[in-house]
Structure formats: C-alpha cells, structure tokens
C-alpha cells in the first residue's frame, strides 16, 4: 500500500475537514469580532465574552445546563453500567436479544420522537415540567451510550481475574469493588463524559421537556437567534464548543487507554 500522502489525498482531506469545521471556525472567529454586526469583521475584541458574563439570563441558563448535565450523566452512568453488566454477565437469559435492542433504541430513535414521547409521559403522570423532567429525559437519552462504552470493555474483561479474587477469599461484592470496578473504571468515566457532553448540547429533547422555571443554554441560544443574531451568542457557543470538545477528547483517550491496558495484560 502507498503510505505517502498523494495530492489527491491531501485535497480530499482538506475539503472534508473544511466542510466539517469551517462553519465552526467562522463562529469562533466572529465571537472575537469588535463589530456589533455579526457578518462584518470590525477588528479583534473580547468584549462579547465580557458582555456574556454580564448577561444574567444566559449565565443562569448555563448553570442550569451544567447542573442537568452533571446529574443526568451521573444517573445515566449508574444505570448504563448496571445494564452493561447484566447484558455481558448473565449469559443467555430469556429475551436477552430483545433487551439489548431495547437498551440501544434511544441511540437510533429520532430525537423529536424521544422528546415528544417523554413529554406525553410527563403530562400523563402529571409531572411538572422543568429541571427534573429535562434531567430524566437526558438520562433516558444518554444511558445507552454509557452501556455501549462499558459493555465493550466488559467483553474483553478476563473473567479469571474475578475467579482469582474469589478463590483468594473475596466474596462476590468485594470482588466487584476491588477487582472489577477499578479495571473498568476508565470506560465508566468515558461513558460519563460522553453522557455529559450529549446532555450539554441537546436542544430537541430539552425543548420538549423544558418548563417555565428551567431553560438550558442551547434553548436560550436558539431563541436568541430567532430574535436576531447577537455576537454574545457566538461567544457562548464558542465556550460550549470548547467544553464539548474537551469532554469528547478525554472520553476517547480514557477508553483507548483502558483497551490498551487490557491488551497489555492479555498476553
């Protein structure tokens, strides 16, 4: 195979990445625009970041978003890890395939439908919409991502490690906490970060389930844009992009490291 980059390869790479990232790059650049007009470059300035931090409505929304993301990611991590354990460990219980499919369904389900069905559910059980409904909705959405990440780690997990722990006198629960959990921890953290970022940038499901008391940052930005573009929104978006990027990169690194570690110990 030709391992050197040909002109064709470089061109397609540049076009591909430009297609993906040019709009985002533009947004970040314009967040440093001195001009009030979003589409006209008026020199470098950080004034919109300053304005952003003085905009209480936006700051409030950011806080709500962060709290929802932390809480829903925590819930999703616990539930998702338990589901992954059940799916990989307890052999062929009846309906296992169906259960696996059902756990992964929210991943492929259109968000509008997930959002709508959750809304109908909350209305049916007479649950006031607000902070908690968004949190629960996000837990539903992100749990399956945690399950996927943790399950792939458990598949390569050497069961004889657990047997060795039990053989040496550790009852099942202590075996789980002293051997299993430390070894799958990187994938659990990766799952958490993934759930966190998914919750951070979700607009559709959040807007279906938001109430008067709780507005998340994506909802706020979306409604702000409808009233007219403001450079403040660019600044807020740039920060959001930064956080999400950081989350995804650390999740990737963590799961890669845990796979490498398990491979190193396999031989």
């Amino acid at each position: 195979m030709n391992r050197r980059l040909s002109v064709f390869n470089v061109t397609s790479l540049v076009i591909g990445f430009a297609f993906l990232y040019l709009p985002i790059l533009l947004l970040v650049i314009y967040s440093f625009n001195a001009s009030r007009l979003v589409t006209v470059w008026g020199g470098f300035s950080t004034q919109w970041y300053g304005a952003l931090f003085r905009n209480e409505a936006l700051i409030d929304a950011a806080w709500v978003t962060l709290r929802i993301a932390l809480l829903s990611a925590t819930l999703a991590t616990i539930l998702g890890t338990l589901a992954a354990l059940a799916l990989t460990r307890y052999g062929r219980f009846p309906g296992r395939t169906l259960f696996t499919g059902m756990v992964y369904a929210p991943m492929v389900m259109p968000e509008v439908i997930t959002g709508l069905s959750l809304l109908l559910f909350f209305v049916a059980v007479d649950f006031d919409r607000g902070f908690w409904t968004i949190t629960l909705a996000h837990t539903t959405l992100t749990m399956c991502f945690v399950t996927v990440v943790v399950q792939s780690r458990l598949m390569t997990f050497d069961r004889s490690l657990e047997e060795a722990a039990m053989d040496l006198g550790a009852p099942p629960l202590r075996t789980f906490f002293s051997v299993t959990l430390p070894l799958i921890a990187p994938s659990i953290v990766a799952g958490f970060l993934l759930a966190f970022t998914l919750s951070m940038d979700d607009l559709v499901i959040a807007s279906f389930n938001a109430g008067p008391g709780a507005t998340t940052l994506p909802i706020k930005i979306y409604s702000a844009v409808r009233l007219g573009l403001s450079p403040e929104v660019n600044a807020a978006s740039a920060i959001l992009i930064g956080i999400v990027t950081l989350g995804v990169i650390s999740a990737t690194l963590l799961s890669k490291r845990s796979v490498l570690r398990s491979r190193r110990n396999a031989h």
Partner: protein
Amino acid sequence: MRRSFAPWANPDAKPLIRFENVTKRFGESTAVDHLSLNIFEGEFFCLLGPSGCGKTTLMRMLAGFETPTEGTITLGDQNLAGVPPYRRPVNMMFQSYALFPHMSVEKNIAFGLKQDGMPKDQIADRVGEMLRLVQLEKLARRYPSQLSGGQRQRVALARALAKKPKVLLLDEPLGALDKKLREETQFELMDIQHDLHMTFVVVTHDQEEAMTMADRIAVMDHGRIVQVATPGEIYEQPKTRFIAEFVGDVNIIEGHVQGQENGLWRVKTSSAEAPLTIDDPDEVLHSGQPVAIAVRPEKMVIQRDPPGPGAINVLTGEVWDIGYLGDWTVYRVKLANGEILRVTRANASRFVESPIDWDEQVYVTFAPDAAVILAE
C-alpha cells in the same frame, strides 16, 4: 528423597480429597462421567489428558467454580457441596495467571491475606516470605505488565501459596513458558511442594511435565479416569492402548493370541514370521483373542547382522528414516507388511565405525518382558 511415600498403597490411609461418583454435564455434553478418585495429603497429583477430557472441569469443581451435577466431593471431613470458592481451603494458580493488573506484585500476593483480615505487619512478613520463596524480592513494587512471563508465573504461584492452602490447584502451570524455563520450573515446583508439605493437584496435557513432577498421575479421557498410577507404572504398564500412545512413544503390533507356553504368551502377527513371545503374566487371555502388543522404542534393539538361530521376537525390515537427536538416534524401520516401527538407540559413543544407513536391511528384536499386551 521421598522413596517411601506411597499412601495410596496403604489401605488404612485416609484420603484428603475424595471424588465419589462425580458427574458434570453442560447441557447435552458430559464433561466428567461418574468419576471416583482419591488424593492423599502431601501428594503431587497430576491430572493428565488431551484437551476436552474433563480434567479442567474436575479441577474447577474442586475450586468451587463449577458444581457437580451428581456425586460428592469431600476435602478432609468437609463435604464441599454448596461451599462457595471464597470459603474453600483451596487456592488455585490460573493458566492465564490472572494477576490483578492494577496491583503491584506485593499487593497481588497480599490480596488473599487481606481477605482473611490478617493484621498488617503479619501480612508484610508473609508477603516477604513468599517473595523470597519465589526469588522476586527486588520486583515487589513492579506491576504485572512490567514483568516477564516467567516472573508472572512466580507471582501467581506466590499469591496462591500465600494463604497456606490445604490444597494448591495448578492449571497448566508451565504452559506459557518456553522449554528451558519449563524444565527448571518443574523441579522448582517439586522442591517447593516438598518443602511446604502441601498437596498439589496439577492439570496438564503435557505428559513429560506430568511424568517429571507427579507422585501419581490420573490419565483422563472422555470424562473418565483410564488409569491412576505412578509415572513408572503408567509408562511401563499402561492399561489401555490410549495410555500407551498418549504417554511417550510406542510401537503397537496387532495380532491374535495363539496360546500360552511356560507362562509366556504366543501371539501371531502379520509383522513377524514366527509368533511373538510376550511375558505379561497378569493378563488373562484366551486363544484367538485379538490383542495389541505395545513396545517402547527404546526397548527394541536394531542390528545389521541376523540374530542367531533360536532368537525370539525378530522383526525384519529396512531403514526408512533416521533422525539424529544428539543423545538419541531414532530409526524408522519399515517392515515387510508395510508397518513402520520406531526404534531408538542411545548414542553412547561419539564415533561409530559404520553406522546403520538409509535403506539398509535390519533386524529388530525385543525381549519378551519388554512388551505389554493390551486387550483390544
């Protein structure tokens, strides 16, 4: 050093481990089939057999990872039914070693002691003792990923020995080591077992390993035990053709019993003109019965000159292949009926004037008591 050790020959000796009529089925397939076996305290016991013969299942039942479908296993006076692995006075060294990758060598060894709630200073002493035993004092703070295969094997051994179990189970303990290291470790394991007066049960598919280390070997096939005996008995008096062929090399000559003369069996075969004479008084045979004669290659003599008149058990053929192994030379001799015999000869002197060559006509003989008759 332990010549007189033979509790299995003493009818009053009480076995430490007793399998009584144990069966283990996985769905449709039977891994262990109505098996009974006694293992005595202080024994170095080997379960030997090809893969899939049920030896690992047998060991895992002893460790508590599998439950017998039928039958009972007792250890000392304790019936092990329903006792979980973490409450059995038995420790296991896993084939993959199963070292905890997130713990250092000393933490790995201390793991079992910590589960027992042993005071910290005692744990430290015991870990130090174990590290000295396997000569890994300098690597106490390393992690398993920083160790070589041989070092990992030692850590696994130390970890399994740390709790001073009544029985140590070893699942293919030397399988992952290279040949040279394997040989050294075999003798080391024997020394450790002897010094600690512990009962070792080893699962292996390597007959050389079993022969070297074991006091007794149980040869298994299809979930059953075919023979339990000392390595010497297994090799020299195999009970079945399967054992004769599985343990060491063997020549099998098929034939029919012709009769008995002066306590010696006469067997008619297509391999030799005259009936073969075999001294195997324990066998009870009748005329016309089909049998297999098993002769080990080193118990056959190969020569160029025709043996004198009156010589018995003479097979003639031509040299088909010669393999020079340094200490031994292996000759493959093709008989008139097409069968190929394997004959080995020790290379006692460095130079031989005119060695036996390819395609040469040769005579192969063996003594009547060199062979074993195996009823088909």
